Every structure is written in C-alpha cells, then in structure tokens.
C-alpha cells in the first residue's frame, strides 16, 4: 500500500485528506468523529469575533435528478464563543496528536490578529489558515474576500500574521478575482508559508418565482452566497494550476479545495500540484464516511502505477498545461461511432447539426432529404461500414439492441473537426470515441507560426488585412 502521508510546510499529516473550514469542522466532537473515520486533518470553522447567523443559510442546485450539484451558503464564521473553540482545539490535539488541526482565522485589526494567533497557537493548532476568501457577509465588513480581492491589503495582513505566528501561515484565497496570480504573488511577498484555494464563489442559487425572492431566502430577502460543490471543481483546478505553474508562486505548498468528493477528484488536484486537499460539500451531503473510499481509491491508484508515495503523484500534470498558442495545430481527432453500441437516440446528430459542424449524417437518406434537413456539405460517399451497419441492423443482426439501421448516424471524417461534442452528449459509454488520425503534418503551434510569419489567415477585416501587409 502506497504511503499517503504528506508534509505540508512542515506540518505532518497521515494523509492528504483534510476537512475544509466549514460546518463539518464546527466542533471538536465533530472533528474527532471525522478523524475516527479516517480524515487526516481539519481546518477549524473560522474563528473570530462573535457573529450572529441567519436562517435559512444554504441553497442547492440540482441537475436533472442529481441533487446538490452545487451548494451555496450565507453562513458566517463560527457563532460559538472563542474560548469554547480554543478549549476544544486543545482537547482534539491531545486526543489526536498525529492528526492535523489548522485554525482558520478572520479578524480585522492588527491587535486582533496578534491576539487570536497567539490564542490559536497556545490552544495547540498545528497551523493557521487566514480566511481571505469568504465572499458573503464578512466581506461587507472589510474581511474575508474583501482582503483577498486587494493584494496590498492581503500582503500587509499576511505579513502581520507571519510576524506573530510560530506555526505555518496558510493564506486561503478567493476565486472572485480576475487574475489569481496577483493575490498569489502577494502571498509570496508576505512571507506566508502556503496557499489554500479556492474559497467559495459569489452566487445566487435561483429565484423563488412565487415570491420573487432570490435563494436562499431569509424572510423577505436574500443575499449573495458562496458557491461550492462538484460544479466548481473545474474552476478550482484551473486556479490551482495557475499558481502551481507560476515560476515563483509554485514554490509554496498548496491545499486544493473545490468540489472534491472522491479519490479521483483528489488525485486530479494532487496531479495539478496540491499537497493536501480539503473537502466540505461532499461531507455535508454524505458524511465523514466518504473518506474510506478516498483513502483506498487513491492508495490503489498509486499502487497500480507503481508509485510508493502520494508525493510521486504531486504535480505530474502541471507541465501538460500550456498556453493555447503552444498547442499543436497539426493534431487531429475525428469522431468514431460504434454501430454495435449505438441505441439510435441521435443526440449526437442534433448536437453536430445545431451545435457544431454538420458532419454527422443519417444513412438511408436521399441527397434531397439530406439537404432539406439542413446539410450543406454532403459526404463524397457513404462509408462502407455505415452501409454494412444499415444492412445488418435492418436484418436485426447488429448487436443485442436491434436498432433500425437508419437511426445509426455516421461521421463524415473529412468534414469532422474533432470538437468532442458528439462524444460528450452520447449517453452510451464507449459508443462515440475520438479517434486519433495522423494528419501527416509536423507539430506546429500558433506561436511557431507567429515566429515564422505564417500566422496569416485569410478572410478578416480589411483594416487587419491592410495592417498585416505593412
């Protein structure tokens, strides 16, 4: 079994799986149950000056029959007295000395930061996470994402914290910025030891159309919340990779957050450079128990690839993220429909017709019928396999599903631009795959063309054409 233990800027954790600062880390009793279930660390629900919360607090967004594809909340930091939280931190660390407890902190003044850092460290926290990410409520009071949005303010407060702290200082960033590199560089300048990202995204979860009140509703009104859950994972992966591929910021350990619920999600964040991952929504949905699958799945994955430690996985995918200008223009894939798996729903056909490049056709049509359906370019010839598939399917000999042959689309490979769309909408796994074709051309990027001066594509604005000529 692969070694899952990690060292996060000096903090040793039995595994990379931490609970994010959120309702699942509200109390010591909860965190101890989480550690029993297998979580390696927990970032305590943010400590600060006392606040008052509203009811209700969460909003969810479903996709079809899938519940809570995304979640948002308008809950503030902890609403429990500071001394109670500190006492519980001490108790948890006493009973679970090998597990990681990070104190998430959010206060305003320099004196407050000094005091709360000292109290959190005295209580036994292994490290501090400065909450510069919360995008609802607290930011209106000049804290949370209000700090994360202003690199100068972020840098200054982070410097205070570094000067007060004896334990590592982690800066939790907000994704509600136009360029994550700016706050990332501010963290680096401040001397803070690590970054965690992403905090939640500003959001309105929907509108109650009966009451005409956005969601979640508090009496007659609502406000924006912080969005999280599976739906935000792609955003989080991108922002993480923006930092882990940055020439200087990449030196900081990263704790990846955003839509992580399975071992596979975690592996993806680690492959893009995260040392630890933090989880909230999936636990709010299914409970602490999900960590069993995360530990086992990640461990088996590493074993399968002959990796002895999770550290070998870290960052393996970073180098394969390049600017668009460095992508190979000669690389070519085309869609390939497996006639035996096709169930004849024709979702690929309509997606290609209306949403892509009109290169998927239905067999058995006359040219007039095809033109009437909207095809402007017709295949030079119907591929033999499509003809055969039609004959077989009509004879009931194509696979177990007895789909009429005329319902099974075929791809005009000469016209297919390899966009993936048909394979993305196809409901049957492995039915439409993207087949790699040898384009016969050497690797060439847009940046290569710029260098060679061959980046002239005919058919633009006259002004551009004129400018190019001179």
């Amino acid at each position: 079994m692969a070694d899952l233990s990690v060292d996060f800027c000096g903090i040793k954790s039995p595994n990379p799986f931490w609970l994010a600062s959120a309702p699942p880390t509200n109390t010591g009793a909860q965190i101890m149950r989480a550690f029993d279930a297998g979580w390696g660390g927990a970032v305590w629900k943010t400590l600060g000056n006392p606040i008052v919360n509203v009811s209700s607090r969460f909003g969810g967004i479903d996709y079809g029959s899938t519940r809570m594809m995304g979640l948002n909340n308008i809950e503030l930091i902890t609403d429990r007295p500071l001394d109670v939280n500190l006492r519980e931190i001490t108790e948890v660390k006493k009973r679970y000395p090998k597990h990681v407890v990070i104190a998430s902190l959010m206060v305003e003044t320099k004196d407050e930061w000094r005091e709360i850092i000292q109290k959190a460290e005295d209580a036994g926290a292994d490290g501090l996470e400065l909450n510069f990410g919360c995008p609802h409520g607290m930011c209106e009071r000049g804290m949370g994402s209000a700090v994360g949005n202003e690199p100068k303010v972020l840098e200054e407060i982070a410097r205070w914290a570094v000067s007060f702290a004896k334990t590592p200082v982690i800066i939790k960033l907000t994704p509600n910025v136009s360029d994550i590199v700016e706050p990332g560089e501010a963290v680096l300048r401040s001397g803070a030891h690590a970054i965690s990202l992403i905090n939640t995204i500003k959001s309105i979860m929907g509108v109650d159309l009966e009451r005409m009140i956005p969601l979640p509703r508090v009496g007659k009104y609502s406000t924006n919340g912080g969005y999280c859950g599976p739906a935000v994972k792609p955003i989080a992966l991108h922002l993480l990779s923006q930092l882990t591929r940055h020439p200087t910021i990449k030196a900081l350990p990263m704790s990846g957050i955003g839509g992580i619920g399975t071992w596979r999600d975690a592996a993806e964040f680690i492959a893009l450079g995260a040392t630890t991952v933090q989880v909230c929504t999936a636990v709010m949905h299914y409970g602490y128990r999900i960590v069993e699958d995360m530990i086992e799945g990640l461990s088996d994955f590493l074993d399968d690839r002959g990796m002895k430690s999770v550290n070998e996985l870290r960052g393996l995918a970073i180098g394969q993220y390049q600017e668009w200008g460095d992508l190979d223009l000669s690389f070519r894939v085309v869609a390939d429909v497996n006639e035996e798996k096709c169930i004849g729903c024709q979702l690929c056909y309509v997606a290609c017709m209306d949403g892509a490049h009109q290169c998927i056709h239905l067999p058995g049509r006359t040219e007039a019928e095809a033109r009437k359906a909207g095809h402007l370019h017709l295949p030079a010839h119907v591929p033999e396999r499509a003809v055969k598939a039609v004959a077989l399917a009509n004879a009931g000999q194509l696979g177990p599903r007895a789909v009429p042959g005329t319902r099974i689309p075929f791809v005009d490979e000469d016209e297919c631009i390899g966009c993936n769309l048909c394979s993305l909408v196809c409901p049957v796994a492995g039915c439409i795959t993207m087949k790699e074709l040898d384009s016969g051309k050497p690797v060439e990027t847009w940046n290569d063309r710029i260098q060679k001066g061959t980046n002239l594509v005919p058919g633009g604005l006259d002004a551009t054409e004129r400018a190019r000529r001179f």
Partner: protein
Amino acid sequence: MDSHSSMNLRLPPGRLEERFHEKKPLYDEHEALTEANRCLYCVDAPCVTACPTKIDVPTFIHKVATGNVRGAARTILTENLLGESCGQVCPVETLCAGACVYNAWERPPIQIGRLQHYAVTTAIANKPDLFELAPETGKTVALVGAGPASIAAAGWLALRGHRAVVFEKKTIPGGLNTLGIAPYKMKGDAALKEIAWVLGLAKGRIELRLGVDVVAGAAGAEEVSAAALLADYDAVFLGLGLGADSAMGVPGEDGEGVVGATAFIERLKADPALTLDGVQRAIVVGGGNTALDAVHELASLGVAATMVYRRSEAKMPGYAHELAAARVDGAGLVEDRAPIEVVRASGKLVALRVAPAKDGKPVGGAAPEDLPADLVIVAIGQNRATQIAQAFAGVALDPKGRVVVDPATHRTGNAKVWSGGDCVNGGKEVVNAVAEAKVAVLAIHSTLMGAN
C-alpha cells in the same frame, strides 16, 4: 490420497446447463455506473441489515460509483468471501433489494446483486490479490464437505494464517453452489472459478481433497476417519450440507423416470450424459425453492413441466418471485394435490397419480387423477447428513437432525469442532452458509490463537 489443491477446476462440455442464458448477465462498466449512481448511499441502510453476511452495501456501491471497483470488492468480500456467486444466486428480492428504501417509494430497488457481481468479477479479473495474507500460524484446520460454508471458511482461515484441508466426498467441489444453482442464475463453472480464486488467494494454504469420504469407523481407501481428523488437526469444521433427496414413499416410486430433485439438477449441471430425449411431460413434486428451480429449468428446456404441491399456492415455502419467473418461462402449478402412486406400464413410468389434498393431506374418498408424465422429479426435501456428524464425539443433533451449535460461535458440543451451513440451519441460502462460516472462523481463529 491425492492432493487436488492445484487441480484444474473445470466441468466437462456438453452439459444441459450450457443451453441456459443468464437472466441477469454481468453488467458492463457503464451499466454498473448508471445503477450505482442511482443508489442513495443511505445511512444505517436497511439493505445491510437484510444481508445475512451484513455487507456494507451503500459503501460498496459508492465505491463502484467513484471507479474504486477494487475497494468495492474488498468491502463485499470482507463480509462475504463468496460475494461473487452470492451476487448471482442470492434471492435479493427477499433480502437486500427487498429492503431497499426505493421500494417504499414505489420505485424499482437498486440492483444490488448485479452490482455486487460486477464489482467482484471485475476486480478479480483485473487483479486477483485483494487481501494481504497474515503470517503463517502453524495451525491446521480440517473442513468436512466442500460446499460454500467450508470454502468460505477455508479462505478466511487461510487469510488469517492457518492452513486448511477440505475433505469432499464428491469429485467436484462447491456443493450446491456448483451443482445445485439454477443455470439461468449461475453455471457450475462460475462457482468453480470462484473456488479457484479462493485457493489462489490463500497461496497454497488450502488443500482440497476430493473423492474422500469422512467415516465413523476405521478408514479404508479414499476414506478418513473422524477420529483421525480430531487427532491430527487443530480444529474441525463440519460443512456437511444435507443428504440425499427425500422419497415420497408411494407405490411405484422406485424405478426409472423418478429422480430426486438435487440429484437431477446435479446431473443437469455437471453430467454431459444426461439428456431429456423422450421427455415431453415432467412433474415436479414439492413447493419449495428446489422444486421451483427444477420446474423452471425443465420448462426452459422445452419440457411441459408442472409442479404438484400438496397445499395452496399461498402456502408454498418457495419464493413468490421465483414462481412468477417460472410461470413466465412456461411452468405450470397444480395446487392442493398429493401424490399417492407412481403409475407404470410394463415398468415404464406413465403418470403420477394424485389425490385432492386439504392442509397437505390426501382427502379420503376423493377421486384420484392421473397426471401423465415421462419424468417425475421429487423435491420434497433432503435427508440429513447425520451419520458423519455423529461420527464426531460430542456433536449433538436436534430432533430435526440438525447439528446443534452455539449461535454466537457456531461451536458444537465438541470443543474442537465447529459447524455451519445447511447441516446446521436445515437448508438455507448460500449467503446463510457463508454468514455462519464467518461466525465459526472468528471463533476458531480466536481459539487457535489462544484468546479463549
């Protein structure tokens, strides 16, 4: 005695069971993912409670959904080492799936059996070594009978570091799991493949001795005495199963054309010499699940097969869902009739004479009728394997001939002997045998390791 631990576990070709198609074939990955994602991942789930081996069903299904198929298999096999076959042969309709919360919601329950079959088969095909072996303990356990209880027990004992020697009278291991399962659920070679996997898992710690009879007295060739087992081994596990099919006890019963149900099904599954040439009409006597399997199998093979039961349909001990499925495939049912004679012409079977019955007994004076038949299958239960059990001093039997055990440990009256499966429970499912084997293994292990 030959050691068969490295034998080639295969059945000969040309068996009747090969003509059957599986009603619930192995899911492909996409089917499994779709079904797994339908599971709500309930907490303290009723499907777990309903499973005799207490498999953590929501956890294994969640793992299937995340692509952690190997982890799913571990979750299953930790509780039920024969999870691959149980995924196929369990009456899930009355166990896990029957308890699924979707039922209360009037939606189709999760196909737990099919997901279990998928998870274990896929994981094993990819990488058979799913568990770490404990170091050798130097202890050896004898297991009598190679049915599911003994195979599961041998596997678990070996994983815990013990050696296991399994003695089986027949030349094919697996008991009813190999030789008694309806072929539209699972074929014999699948059961043998699972046994081969258990043997491989244990890395030579399990020895299978086939064609060896355990006897009370002095042992002859291909025999071993109970006393020798007690003397030579650190513990003994009795997984005896049941004995021969019970007879009706009516005139004309002895002779060709009348066979016991388990004997018939065994030949259908393992003996290429069995044909149904000339059999157009068959009658299956009984109302239990073995009777239902037999009538369903015959009907599927194109025989006009009718079940004769001495009580009403409502009182049948067989599962209602199995009767419904048998009927779909053409099986018939005659209720409230009791057999009183096997009618023969010049020795040849021609009919089963039945009388109207009330509360299971023939009604005196009522006119009997002859049900024409070329084959009569008797499925009214099995005798107990009492002789072998009694060969072990201190092992007690209850009035029904079942081996008496302490339910908490499955230890018998002999402190060195444990028991489980049909010989203890009187004849239940494979999953019950495995559940009992698990209890026994935990007790044997702690005894051998000196815990008590």
